[in-house]
C-alpha cells in the first residue's frame, strides 16, 4: 500500500514538472494557435544559464539565499529575452502564413537552440549543484519526499493560480483573452496585440526558466538535450487538458505524471506480465488518444462549435 502512495507522490512530482512547462505551451497556443516547439529548449537554456550563474557565484562567498535569488532572476531574464527574440524573428512574420509554416520554424528554432547550447556548454552532462538542501521527509511514514520536490509541487500550483488570476482579473489578462478570441477585433478595440503576444511569450519563458532550474535541481543533472523530450511530454499534457486552457494544462500535467508512474508501477500486474515498465509511454499516449477521441478538445477544453 505504501508503494501506492509513493507512486502517487512520484506522479505528482513529475506531473507538476510537466504542468509548469505545459503552461508555457498552452499560453502561446491560446494566443497564437501555434505549437511553440522551441519551448522545451527554452527550459533547457534556463537550466544551463542557471548552472553557469551558480558556478560563477560559487567563486565568491555570497549568502546562499541571495545567490539562489540571483540564479532565478538571471535565468528568468535571459529566457524572457530569448523568447521575446524568438517570437519577433521566427513567428511574428508568419502570422498570416499557412498553418504549417510556423510549426516548421518552431522546429528549426528548437534544433538551433539545442545545437547552440551544445556549442556553448559542450556535450557533457553537468551535475547540477544542490541549491536546496536535500532532506527527505516522511509523509505519514509511508512515502518519502524531498524539499525540492515539495517546492516543485507548490510552485506549479501557485503559478497556476497566479496565472489564472492574471488572465481573468487583470487588464493585460483581458487583453490576452480578447486577442486569443479575435486578433482583428482586439486591434479595433485599441489593444496593442504585439505587446500582448510579447508579454505572453515572456511570461511563458519565465515559467520555463523556473521549471528548468527546478528540474535540473531535482535530478541533479543538466545537459543540452534535456529539453526536447520534456517539451514533448509537456505539450502532450497541455493537449490532454485542453490546449489553450490554463487549468487544463495543470490538470493534464498532473494526470500525465500519475499515469506514467502508476502505469510503470502496475502495468505488469494489469497485463499479466506481458508488458513491463518499458511500456510506460505507451500507456501515456494511449490515454491521450482515448481522451481526444472521446473529448476532441481535451479534458477541460471548451467545445469550439464550428461556425457555419
Amino acid at each position, binding site marked *: 500500500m505504501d508503494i501506492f502512495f509513493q507512486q502517487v507522490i512520484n506522479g505528482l512530482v513529475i506531473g507538476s514538472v510537466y504542468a509548469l512547462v505545459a503552461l508555457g505551451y498552452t499560453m502561446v497556443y491560446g494566443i497564437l494557435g501555434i505549437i511553440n516547439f522551441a519551448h522545451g529548449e527554452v527550459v533547457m537554456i534556463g537550466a544551463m544559464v542557471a548552472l553557469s550563474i551558480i558556478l560563477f557565484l560559487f567563486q565568491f562567498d555570497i549568502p546562499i539565499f541571495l545567490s539562489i535569488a540571483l540564479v532565478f532572476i538571471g535565468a528568468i531574464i535571459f529566457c524572457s529575452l530569448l523568447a521575446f527574440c524568438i517570437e519577433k524573428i521566427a513567428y511574428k512574420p508568419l502570422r498570416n502564413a499557412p498553418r504549417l509554416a510556423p510549426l516548421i520554424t518552431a522546429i528549426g528554432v528548437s534544433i538551433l537552440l539545442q545545437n547552440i547550447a551544445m556549442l556553448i556548454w559542450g*556535450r557533457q552532462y553537468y*551535475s547540477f549543484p544542490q541549491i536546496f538542501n536535500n532532506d527527505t521527509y516522511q509523509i505519514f511514514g509511508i512515502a518519502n519526499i524531498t524539499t525540492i520536490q515539495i517546492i516543485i509541487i507548490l510552485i506549479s500550483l501557485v503559478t497556476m493560480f497566479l496565472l489564472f488570476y492574471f488572465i481573468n482579473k487583470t487588464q493585460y489578462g483581458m487583453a490576452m483573452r480578447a486577442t486569443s478570441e479575435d486578433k482583428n477585433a482586439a486591434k479595433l478595440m485599441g489593444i496593442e496585440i504585439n505587446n500582448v503576444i510579447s508579454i505572453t511569450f515572456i511570461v511563458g519563458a519565465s515559467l520555463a526558466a523556473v521549471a528548468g532550474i527546478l528540474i535540473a535541481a531535482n535530478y*541533479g*543533472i543538466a545537459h543540452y538535450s534535456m529539453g526536447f523530450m520534456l517539451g514533448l511530454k509537456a505539450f502532450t499534457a497541455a493537449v490532454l487538458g485542453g490546449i489553450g486552457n490554463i487549468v487544463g494544462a495543470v490538470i493534464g500535467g498532473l494526470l500525465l505524471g500519475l499515469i506514467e508512474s502508476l502505469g510503470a*508501477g502496475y502495468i505488469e500486474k494489469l497485463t499479466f506480465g506481458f508488458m513491463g*515498465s*518499458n511500456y510506460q509511454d505507451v500507456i501515456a499516449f494511449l490515454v491521450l488518444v482515448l481522451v481526444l477521441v472521446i473529448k476532441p478538445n481535451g479534458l477541460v477544453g471548451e467545445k469550439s462549435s464550428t461556425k457555419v
Partner: protein
Amino acid sequence: MKSKCRNNLLFFLFVASSFFLVSCGSDNSEFDSEGRKIVYIGHAGPLTGPIAHLGKDNENGVKLAIQEANDRNISLDGQTISFKVVSVDDEGKESKTTLVAQKLVDTNVSGVIGHLNSGTTIPASKIYHDEGIPQISPSATNVNYTNQGFPAAFRVMANDKQQGSALANFAINDISANKIAVIDDRTAYGKGLADIFEDTVKGLGGIISSREFTDVTKSDFTAILTKIKGLNVDLIFYAGMDVQGGPMLKQLDNLGLNVNFLTGDGCQTLQFIELAGKSSQGVYASSPGVPLDRMPGGISFNSKYEQTFNQSIQIYGPYAYDATNTLIDAMVKANSYLPENYLPFLKNIQFKGVTGDISFDEKGDINRGSISMYQVKNNKWEYLKTLGDN
C-alpha cells in the same frame, strides 16, 4: 513557370557545386613523398556527438600505433611501407555508419579498426565483409558482432557474454545476493548485458525478482525504483550508461532504499561518481580488460600517450592501440598488406599487447578476455579483482 525554371537551375547548380566541394576532399595516392608505398588503415568511430571523447581516444590509440610502425620502417614484400590512417566519423549512429564504412572501402583501406559501439559496428561489419576487409573492433562488446559468421571480424575486448556472466558470478558469489532486480536502458548494449546477466544468475540459482526498463531519454526513475522497493530485493543490477545511473542512485537514496547496486562498464566512469554524489558510495561495477596500471605495458603506454596527445586516456585507447598493432603484426608475419594474404595470420595471431596477450577464438572473439571488478570508495573507483573468461 519562370520560378520553376529558376528553381530547377538553382537545384542543379547546388548539387553540382556541392559535389565539387566534396570531391576536393579525398586523396589517396599510391606513394608518399619519400616514395614509400602508402597502406591505408581505416579508423571509424564517433568523432562528433555525445561520446566523441571516446571516439577521439580510440583514434589516438590507432594514430600512436601507426606512428610507431612508420618509425620502424616496415617493409612488406620488398616495398617499404608508410601506413596512413583514414579516420571517419560514424557519429555513433546506425543511420550513418554504413555511409562512412563505404567511405573507408572507397579509399581501399587494408584493414579497419572500429567501430566503437556495437550499434554501429554490426551494420558496418557487413560492408567490410562484402569487400573482404578485416575489421578489429577495440570496444564493441555485443555478442552478435562475432556471431554473424564473418571470417574477418575480430574484437580485442571481452564481449557482453563474458562480462554479463562475470557480473552474475560476482553478484551470487561475492555479494551473495539472491533476490535481484534488473534494470536495462533498452539499448542494444543494455539489453545484451542484462539478458546474459539474468540468464546466468538463474543458472546459478539466484532469483530475478523483477526486470525493469528505462530509456535513454528519461531522467526520472522513481516509478520503477519504488516498484523495486516494494519487492525488497537485496541487489539492483543496472545495465546502462553513467548519465542515467548517476541520477538513478540519487533517487534510490531519496526513496530511502539502500540495497547493493551493481552495474557494468557503462557506469564505471568518473562522471558516474560525479553525478551520483555521495550516493555512489559502495557501488560495484565491472569493466572489460584490466586497469591501466595492471596492464603489462600499461604505465609506459600511458606516459607515451600523454606526451603525444597531452591528454589522458579515456577508456579504450589502449585497446585501439593493441588492435592496430595486432593488424600490423599479422601483415608483417604474412609479409603482405593484402587482406587475403594476411587474414590467415590474423586469425591465429599470438600478440603481446599492452592490454595483455591477444589471440582470437574461431569466432573472432579474444581468448581469455578478462573482466575487472571495481567498487566506489569515498568517491573513487577502487580495483577489487579481475575475473578471467568463463
